[in-house]
Every structure is written in structure tokens, then in C-alpha cells.
């Protein structure tokens, strides 16, 4: 079973390896490529949107196509790009950071990825089949229930399948962190990225069921003539908004909390200092997650919930600024007096602080329910959420990729190219979105496919579109960097950045069993402690012995294909009942695979002690 010897393998062998893998490091690669693919797709959609808005009354995109474009841009970026890219980093790094050999349920991990990937492809199949979802990424009813064609059906089924995958990922990470920490790794010794992964997984666990329920209700309304959201039959269309935002608000914290963890690691490493206020950081993360469940109605201030409800949700929302502020000051204090190296990852972290703070400030402005009547559905909102999602999440993902690329692929990304990319992306980002605050305040509504000339909106939109092109150039440069690094990049040592946490104690990339012997953790920043007080190597917590490993399996892929076929069947069965055949076949494949998985015992295999001894450190 050992593939330790480096040898060239054929394309087919590599493909089969990735289709059947249950190794968290390879699943991280899959999440990265899958999420990266959808990121490019969402980025192209963004560019088309900005080309349409480059001049007044442009006719580059038709009104209907524009609606599809904004819907798919939002949906793709949130569900299929940002979240999977974060899951890629979590998968690659979190088990290493807690000193584990894999996640708790490797099979489930693979199943989670394939469900996400095929659900995402199902959603994007709608482009090829001729009608993409067009009710905005929030799919508000009754617009979503009345939308003609199959666009919204693709939205429902695609998100349902990929959402199930994400939920599995969240549960898996929770079980991993609770049960598989190395000896000595107490909760308050966990690196902050592991902590934020943990809290994020809790959010996934509690928030996604609301989306699942909402999507099922929408599916029944659209396909089986139920009337949950139909006011004329006694339903209530506001319930969709509630369900969507009960999920949707925790979702934005699912996007931001992991990158708080990434930045905490980056600031500590490149300032050569212990993270300032570790305990406060941990509790601030929990507090943000806790408050995140009580603020969903701030997306609905103009719905007419009444002054009491609006005030309660406004105050709760503003309260979130407190733990977030604690974090910002802790990062600043981490750098204070530190020995700072401005690497590419650190550049993104430095760029993140002012960008995200602006986004947070406009967030507090929007939280004021009275003022929100003015901002609602204007470009001010668009500017706000791009400042937190791009300035926070995307900067964080790029920082994390530059920081952990050597750990994931064994090569250090080119720093010069990386820094040029950062500056292009950073300026492009602010050029695109800063002006949108003012476009919004001047009254430009969001989601409109044209604007009229001579309303003082021309110049602002032109600047915004030029900024978007600059971000596009930055994105292409990042891809060039990846290709250049893969071809000519320097081989990474185990610890190229003088790191502090456990993942830097194993080689880059790590062997497939991660740790020959589980490490003994003596405190926070465990590797740093060994560098200062020991010989720089982690002490083993166990004698060298056989290592138990899980077997690979093609079943997760087959199961996901089954669910996807059933999804296509569900989408088209209202037209013609013979499509129910696809539902039965698809569910048959999926349930059959489950049966095989349940009945066939698979106890994995052992890497023998002798085999481990032969391999170099």
C-alpha cells in the first residue's frame, strides 16, 4: 500500500487515486481545485457584470441574463468558492495542527467533497441547459416560486446536495477536534486556526439545517404544488426570508471566522511573537458565533417587523462589533514590538486589517435600523459585503494559501509574483468597491442591469469596472504563480517560515500517515516551545508501532453521482413523469452504495513498524 517512493505514475492512476482517496491532505487538494474552479467561474461572472455596468444604458447583457449573472455570481462565490476553499485549508492543516493522522471519519470526508463538487456542477449545469437561477442568491419568495423555467429548481437541488456535503464536513471536523487531539493538546493549547475551524463547524452544524428546511419547502412549492410561501392559499412568503437568514447570517460568520484563525497564525508567525491575548481571541470567536444566531432579522429591517423587533436586532448586531474589535486590537498588539517579516501572506494580513475594519464600520452603519431604510438594497450594501467578504475572506484565503502552500504541495509560492499579485488585487479591490459606497448613497439600487446617464453615476461605475479588471489581472497572476511554482519553485523544507505550530514539525508535504509517532504537546505554540526549550523536535508520546490507516473507496463518488442523477430527475419530473425514472435510478445507486458500505466490513490496514522504520524522517 505504501507509495512512499517517488515515481512517475500515469494520468489514469493519479485520477483513480484522487477519485478513491480518503486522505485528508488529498481531499484538501480536491477542495482547492474544485473551489478554485468555481472561484474562476464566479470571477468571470463578476467581470461580465462590471462590463455591463461600465457605461450608462449598456446593452452588453440583456436584463434577464444580467439577473442570472448576479444570482449565479453570488451563489457560486458563497457556496461553491469561498466555503470549499476554506474547507480545503481546514482539511489540509487542522488534523496536522492537533497532531492527528487523519480526520475522525475519512470516508465521510470524501463523501462531503464529492457531494459539494457534484452539487456545484449540477447548479452550473443550468447554464448549459438554458435557464440559470435568476432570483438573486437569496432566492426570495414569491419571486423564486414564480420564476419560470427550471433555473430555481437547479438552485434548490444543487444547493441541497452541496449543502449536505458541507454539513458532513462540519460534523466531521467537530468529531475530529473533540476526539483526536494529540496527548497534551488541551483545548486551550489548540492553535487559533483549529479553534476557528471548531467554532465554524458548530455554526455549520446549527445553521445549515435551516437552509435544508427552507430549500425543501421551496422545492415542494415549486414542484409539488404545496403553498408554504403562497399568500393566496394561506402561506407566508416572509417565512422564506426568515429561514434563509437564520441560515444566512451564521453563514457569513462561517466565511469569516476561519480566516480570523488564518490571520492569527500569520501574524504570530511573521511577528515572531506569541499571539497577543490568546484566551480573549478564543472567547471572542465563541461570542461572535453565539451572537451570530440572534441577528438574522437585520437583513429584514425594511420588511416591516415593527420598531421593537428592529431595535432588538439592531442592538444585538452592534454588539458583535465588540468581540470583533477585540480581535483587531489583539492582532495589532501581536505585531507591536514583534520582529516583523513582510512576506506575501503577511501583506495580505496587513491589507486585511484596514479593509475589514471599513467593512465592519459600514456594518455598524447598516445595523442602525433607522438609517438602514436609506441604505437598503442600494450599492452601499454591495460595497459593505464585498469589503467583508473580499477584504476578509478572500484576502484570508490568499494569505492562507501563500502561508500553507509549502505544507500542501511541498513548494514555496514565488514571493515576488505573490507581492505583485497582492498590490494589483489590493488596489483593484478598493478601486472597485470603495466608490460603490458613494454610488449607493447617491441612490443607485443594487441588482439593476442598467443606469441612466447624467445622474452622476457614470464616472463612479467606470472606476468600479476598471478596478474589477485590475482584480482580474491579479487573479490571473496568482494562477501564473501556481503554475510557475509547480514547474520551477524551490522545494520547501519542513519549516520554511520558522513556524510555531505542529503542522511545521512534519515534512512538506507530510507523509501520508502524518506522524510516525503521535507528538507530545507541552503548551501553546508547541513547536516553538521545542525550538526554545528543547532540540527543536517534538517529543513522541508513544513508542514506534503499527499505524492503522483507512482504505480508499470509490463509494463516496458513486453515491454522489447517484444523488446528482436523482437531482436532475427531480428538476425535470414536473414536465414529464418519465423523468421520475432518473429519480429512481439515482436514488437506487445512492442507497445501494450506502447498503454496500453498511454491510461490507472494511477495517482498513496497518503500516507495520518495520515499514515505518525504513522511511526517512
Amino acid at each position, binding site marked *: 500500500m505504501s507509495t512512499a517512493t517517488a515515481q512517475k505514475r500515469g494520468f489514469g492512476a493519479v485520477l483513480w487515486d484522487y477519485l478513491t482517496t480518503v486522505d485528508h491532505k488529498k481531499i484538501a487538494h480536491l477542495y482547492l481545485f474544485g473551489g478554485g474552479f468555481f472561484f474562476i467561474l464566479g470571477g468571470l461572472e463578476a467581470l461580465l457584470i462590471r462590463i455591463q455596468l461600465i457605461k450608462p444604458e449598456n446593452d452588453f447583457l440583456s436584463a434577464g441574463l444580467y439577473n442570472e449573472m448576479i444570482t449565479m455570481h453570488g451563489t457560486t462565490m458563497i457556496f461553491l468558492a469561498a466555503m470549499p476553499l476554506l474547507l480545503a485549508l481546514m482539511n489540509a492543516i487542522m488534523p496536522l495542527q492537533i497532531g492527528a493522522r487523519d480526520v475522525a471519519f475519512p470516508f465521510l470526508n470524501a463523501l462531503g467533497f464529492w457531494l459539494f463538487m457534484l452539487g456545484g456542477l449540477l447548479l452550473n449545469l443550468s447554464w448549459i441547459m438554458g435557464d440559470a437561477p435568476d432570483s438573486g442568491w437569496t432566492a426570495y419568495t414569491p419571486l423564486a416560486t414564480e420564476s419560470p423555467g427550471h433555473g430555481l429548481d437547479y438552485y434548490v437541488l444543487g444547493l441541497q446536495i452541496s449543502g449536505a456535503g458541507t454539513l458532513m464536513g462540519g460534523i466531521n471536523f467537530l468529531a475530529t477536534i473533540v476526539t483526536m487531539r494529540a496527548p497534551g493538546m488541551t483545548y486551550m493549547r489548540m492553535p487559533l486556526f483549529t479553534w476557528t475551524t471548531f467554532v465554524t463547524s*458548530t455554526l455549520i452544524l446549527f445553521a445549515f439545517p*435551516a437552509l435544508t428546511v427552507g430549500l425543501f419547502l421551496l422545492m415542494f412549492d415549486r414542484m409539488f404544488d404545496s403553498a408554504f410561501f403562497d399568500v393566496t392559499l394561506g402561506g*407566508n412568503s416572509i*417565512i422564506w426570508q*426568515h429561514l434563509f437568514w437564520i441560515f444566512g447570517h451564521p453563514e457569513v460568520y462561517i466565511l469569516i471566522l476561519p480566516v480570523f484563525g488564518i490571520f492569527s497564525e500569520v501574524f504570530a508567525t511573521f511577528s515572531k511573537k506569541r499571539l497577543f491575548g490568546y484566551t480573549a481571541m478564543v472567547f471572542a470567536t465563541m461570542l461572535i458565533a453565539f451572537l451570530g*444566531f*440572534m441577528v438574522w432579522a437585520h437583513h429584514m429591517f425594511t420588511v416591516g*417587523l*415593527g420598531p421593537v423587533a428592529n431595535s432588538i436586532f439592531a442592538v444585538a448586531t452592534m454588539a458583535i462589533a465588540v468581540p470583533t474589535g477585540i480581535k483587531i486590537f489583539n492582532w495589532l498588539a501581536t505585531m507591536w514590538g514583534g520582529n516583523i517579516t513582510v512576506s506575501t501572506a503577511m501583506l495580505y494580513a496587513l491589507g486585511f486589517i484596514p479593509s475589514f475594519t471599513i467593512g465592519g464600520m459600514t456594518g455598524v452603519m447598516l445595523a442602525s435600523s433607522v438609517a438602514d431604510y436609506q441604505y437598503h438594497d442600494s450599492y452601499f450594501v454591495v460595497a459593505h459585503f464585498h469589503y467583508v467578504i473580499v477584504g476578509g475572506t478572500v484576502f484570508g484565503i490568499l494569505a492562507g494559501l501563500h502561508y500553507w502552500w509549502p505544507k500542501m504541495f511541498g513548494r514555496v509560492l514565488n514571493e515576488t509574483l505573490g507581492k505583485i499579485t497582492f498590490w494589483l488585487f489590493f488596489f483593484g479591490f478598493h478601486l472597485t468597491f470603495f466608490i460603490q459606497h458613494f454610488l449607493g448613497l447617491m441612490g443607485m439600487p443594487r441588482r439593476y442591469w442598467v443606469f441612466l446617464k447624467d445622474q452622476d453615476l457614470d464616472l463612479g461605475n467606470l472606476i468600479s469596472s476598471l478596478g474589477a479588471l485590475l482584480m482580474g489581472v491579479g487573479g490571473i497572476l496568482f494562477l501564473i504563480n501556481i503554475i510557475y511554482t509547480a514547474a520551477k519553485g524551490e522545494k520547501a523544507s519542513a519549516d520554511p517560515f520558522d513556524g510555531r505550530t505542529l503542522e511545521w514539525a512534519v515534512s512538506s508535504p507530510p507523509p501520508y500517515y502524518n506522524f510516525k509517532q503521535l507528538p507530545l504537546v507541552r503548551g501553546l505554540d508547541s513547536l516553538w516551545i521545542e525550538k526554545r526549550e528543547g532540540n527543536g523536535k517534538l517529543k513522541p508520546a508513544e513508542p514506534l508501532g503499527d499505524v492503522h490507516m483507512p482504505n480508499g473507496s470509490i463509494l463516496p463518488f458513486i453515491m454522489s453521482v447517484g444523488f446528482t442523477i436523482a437531482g436532475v430527475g427531480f428538476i425535470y419530473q414536473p414536465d414529464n413523469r418519465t423523468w421520475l425514472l432518473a429519480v429512481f435510478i439515482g436514488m437506487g445507486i445512492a442507497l445501494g452504495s450506502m447498503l454496500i458500505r453498511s454491510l461490507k466490513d472494511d477495517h482498513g490496514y496497518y503500516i507495520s513498524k518495520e515499514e515505518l522504520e525504513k522511511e526517512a524522517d
Partner: protein
Amino acid sequence: MMTDNTNFNSFQKQRNKEEMKRQLITFVLMIGFTIVAFAIVATGSMQKMFAVPLLLIMAVVQVGFQFYYFMHMKDKGHEFPSLMIYGGVWAAILTIAALVAIVWW
């Protein structure tokens, strides 16, 4: 050494026996609750005002039995699952309360 082992075994046996007894009692109680619930609805012997809260209370007690006895939440080492379950219950209560207050009230 030998005696220690037998002592331990008898202690363990005693504990298993008690555990089994508790499981059986809760199982019987749960079946009883279910029969009572069905009987109340089927016979229509109770007014709706009284029947609905009673059914809800019995449901909550059953969930408690399920968590604490069958899923062993009463045993040591279940602090984390308890925390997560109560977190989930809290999130659900909050959601339902808000929806009831805002949408239907």
C-alpha cells in the same frame, strides 16, 4: 491479584445489572407514555386546551429519557455532547420564539 479481579468483576456486574434495570424501566415508561398519548387523542376524552400541553410535556420527558438513558448523557465524559445538544436546543428555541413572535403573533 486474583481476588481483586473478581471483586472488580462483581462490581462491574452489579453496575451492569443496575444499568440494565434503569434501561428497562425507562423503556417501559416510554412505551407507556406513547400509549397514553395515543389514547388521549384516539378517545378524545380530553379537551384540546389540556391535551396539547400534556402531549408536549410527555414528548419533552421522552426526549430527556432518550438523551440521558439511551444515549448515556447522564454518564461521565459526555460534557461536550451535552454542551452541543443544549447549544442546538437553544438555537432552535430562539428561532421558534422569534418566528412565533414576529410572523404569527
